[in-house]
């Protein structure tokens, strides 16, 4: 099974959003007759530029690390993602490349998400 970060492309105006919205943020389009919103999904690019970041030391109880590095990245297509960073000394404006990995484990669940590395 391929895990990926899927953007949602509006069938009416073509804009891509992440995360999903029930109505397109740009044009409010939705095929409301079905429970599934009629967006096309497509894998988002994984490379981009780091906009900002933090080292978080007060972690949710299910993490075992001492700290997590978290950041917001602007992807090559203009979309943005929040994700984890595996970069020792992050710097605003640096180029990064993303991989989909397990980002959170609880007693019941494993969550996949994007992790950014120095590119």
């Amino acid at each position: 099974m391929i895990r990926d970060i899927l953007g949602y492309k509006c069938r009416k105006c073509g804009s891509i959003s992440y995360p999903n919205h029930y109505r397109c943020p740009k044009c409010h389009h939705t095929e409301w007759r079905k429970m599934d919103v009629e967006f096309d999904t497509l894998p988002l690019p994984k490379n981009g530029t780091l906009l900002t970041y933090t080292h978080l030391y007060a972690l949710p109880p299910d993490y075992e690390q001492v700290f997590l590095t978290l950041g917001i990245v602007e992807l090559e297509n203009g979309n943005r993602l929040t994700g984890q960073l595996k970069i020792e000394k992050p710097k605003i404006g640096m180029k990064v490349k993303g991989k989909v990995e397990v980002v959170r484990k609880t007693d019941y669940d494993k969550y996949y998400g994007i992790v950014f590395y120095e590119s």
Partner: protein
Amino acid sequence: MREVYIVGIGITSFGRLEYPLVEIASYPSVVALQDAGLDTVDHLFVANMGGGRINHQTALSSAVLDHLSLWPAGSETIENGPASGSSAVKLGFQAIASGMCETVLVAGAERMSEVNQLDATDFVATLTHPMAEQIYGITLPALAGMFTRLYMEKYGVTRRHLAMVAVKNHGNAMDNFFAHVHTRVTLEGILDDRDAETNNPVIADPLHFFDMCPVSDGGAAVVLASKEVAKKLGKPMIRIAGVGQATDTHAVHERPDPTELTAVRLAAKRAFEMAKIEPKDVNVAELHDAFTILEIAESEEVGFFKKGEGHLALERGETQLTGKIPINPSGGLKAKGHPVGATGVAQVHEIVLQLRGQAEKRQVKDPKIGFTCNFGGFGNNVVCTVIKKEE
């Protein structure tokens, strides 16, 4: 639209309270009713965020109403995350403005200490976007940390500026009996001393421990009334002159400029327009300083200072009790505390105290117009009010 007045106020101590959530809402309600000189009201709103999840309490407002023997008045529980309190005040305003009620009691209450600190943080983290933020370990402090870093980069804000907010608000709280924290904080202690990194450890870099508000229990209440009733009660005529609310994207990364708090700007603008005043007319303000950076950023977005210049005004002392526009005389969320559902009501409580001239040692000189900004989520649902003293 009918005019709406604040005729009674009440508050609990903030901190760790050993009595149940229903009583945390009831006690300040009784104080506020007594203050107003009213025995009963037409309606009750109770603002609360964690009742269902933390305290396993359903239909909180009906329980509070019953505890206060207020039948047959109607009631609802109002939730809008950390802005629940101001939302409830706004709905009380609308109940009277619409002509449906003459008097409304608005109580805000939270009891976070029923769970431990980690669970409390995890609970508050549910305010972040579940799929786009929460799964990464993102919490509100993490969002605030990323926001602060950008702010520093873009506007030259430093850790010293942040610390100045903490020092000011902890100083104000020293004179607030009801505040959660009564500890004098100095720039030396949290920034410069050898022990500074121990006293004030990093939480979400560049934010340190003293850049964040504590987790508090607490309650606050206000009684609202129509002009006709307010006049009869003979209290100072303090009017809700403007209310504004606005929302922004849930996931912070979707906002066009991540250093802008669009919902704060719009909510304030709407409140000022409704009150027909300008930001410069405000004499005292309570802003939502859950993180020190937020006081600076909000002071700009609401229009007290130009964007990117809030930290300079802070340096010049303009937000001190004696400054041009005193901010958070109560101690703010930073030092007074942040019992989530109560916070917005407590902000209004402080403004009324100030406008009445009853704020004792932290009294701002002769204010006529007060302002509050209550910030839900990480700024995705914000409520502002303008409160005016009529002569």
